[in-house]
């Protein structure tokens, strides 16, 4: 079942985020802001840009290595998820057939270039998002959002969602197994039984919410979820942001990659 692996993947991603490395210790706000800037910069490149995108791989690679995130796991996640961009992008080579370049006699259409650009943007944006969560625990991201001004109500229920995601998914998994166990390969995956299962899961969820609410009340809950400040912006965070902005700015506005290529060409 593919969803099983998806489930375990998020479990793994979640565990990764509780490591303790330099990147993990950075303030979540700094990482959220940096990620958004990064995404924005990458997306702001025009359709046919490929070369100028290359330096931006430095950021995920650094996070990956300094944050000690397993490379293969990340690559697999990036490849597996969200085929939508690729699916839509693949039409470009088909539809945009103007010749953009002839390399050793092989004509390269503009569509391929824009498709390559989409693929690179895809890899960059997806890995940035995954790395954000892998190096910043989900609660960390939530607290960052809260302190960046997102409504308390939204953030609290995001935290609840996260907390019970695993509980409920495991519950669903057990129910599915129970059904499987007594189905004996008859295709009992019809909508009818499934809808029942979902219905039962729903009822249990509502009951659970009630019990959670009681538990909260019993510990003095009065409508607001209080939290301790868990992090302070440190010098390293500011430094990180500054470097990040310089890095993004430099590679966005100056054709550094080409310069490097030119210098290299001159050297030979």
């Amino acid at each position, binding site marked *: 079942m593919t969803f099983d692996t998806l489930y375990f993947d998020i*479990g793994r991603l*979640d*565990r990764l985020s*509780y490591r303790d490395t330099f990147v993990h210790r950075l303030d979540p706000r700094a990482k959220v802001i940096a990620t958004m800037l990064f995404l924005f910069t990458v997306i702001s490149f025009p359709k046919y840009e490929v070369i100028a995108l290359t330096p931006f791989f430095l950021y995920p690679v650094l996070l990956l290595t300094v944050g000690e995130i397993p490379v293969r796991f990340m690559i697999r996640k990036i490849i597996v998820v969200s085929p939508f961009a690729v699916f839509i992008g693949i039409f470009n080579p088909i539809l945009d057939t103007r010749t953009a370049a002839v390399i050793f006699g092989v004509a390269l259409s503009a569509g391929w270039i824009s498709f390559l650009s989409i693929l690179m943007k895809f890899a960059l944006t997806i890995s940035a998002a995954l790395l954000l969560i892998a190096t910043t*625990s*989900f*609660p960390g991201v*939530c607290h960052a959002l809260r302190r960046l001004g997102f409504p308390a109500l939204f953030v609290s229920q995001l*935290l*609840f969602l*996260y*907390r*019970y*995601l*695993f*509980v409920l998914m495991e519950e669903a998994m057990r129910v599915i197994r129970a059904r499987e166990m007594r189905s004996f390969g008859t295709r009992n995956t019809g909508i009818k039984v499934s809808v029942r299962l979902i219905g039962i899961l729903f009822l249990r969820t509502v009951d*659970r919410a009630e*019990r*959670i609410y*009681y*538990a*909260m*009340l*019993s*510990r*003095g*809950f*009065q409508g607001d*979820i*209080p*939290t*301790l*400040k868990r992090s302070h912006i440190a010098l390293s965070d500011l430094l990180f942001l500054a470097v990040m902005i310089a890095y993004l700015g430099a590679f966005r506005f100056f054709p550094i990659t080409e310069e490097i290529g030119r210098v290299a060409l001159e050297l030979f």
Partner: protein
Amino acid sequence: MSHHIVEFKDVFFRYPDGTEALKGVNFRITHGESVGVVGANGAGKSTLLQHMNGYLMPTSGKVIIGDLAITGKTRREIRKKVGIVFQNPDDQLFMPTVFDDVAFGPLNLGMDEATVRERVRKALGMVNSLDLQDKPPHHLSCGQKSAVAIASVMAMEPDILAMDEPGANLDPRSRRSLIMLLKTFKHSKIIASHDLDLILDVCERCIVIGGGAVVADGPSAEILSNKGFLEENNLELPLSFQVRS
């Protein structure tokens, strides 16, 4: 210290679907007592415990904690005094990390940061779980969750502690440390459980619930050794009293 008193006065409770779960419950627990609540499945133990800080309000009758009867107005006050540990720790650990969860109560009580941190440290230390504090509860084992759930209630330093089946799903060693922990808790406590051996170890007094009412109330050692009576109430002798042939 009258604020450690728990009194049920002729409490009736009907669930909205019509089930009569409590039918005239009467008892009084004074300061420092530890009381076991036992009874068959569906006897009304959990229902009774949920009356202790006003989740459920009696259909008729009164629940008095300290000097206050529980009403819609007083229950917020009363919740600061009574700590309840539920049957399923997953329902109780609702914050995303262990630390946040244990800190939730003290923060709501309006304590400052240093005090909160101190409270959390102390409560987690009590259940030997200090090293779990940055973990998210969903990556804990069942037994660890139970321990943290207890810590999260202990952090509020309640005057009265109520627990519903605290020992289920614990392995024998963890169960034993729970018993030790409960013995060191010096205020009033009420423990509902099917584990009569645990009740016998922790509680001097025992209340037997049957069909929504108190059918016996007295010293644990006495009640829990009355075989005939226990069997009438879907119970049996604690296992450590049962002679194995």
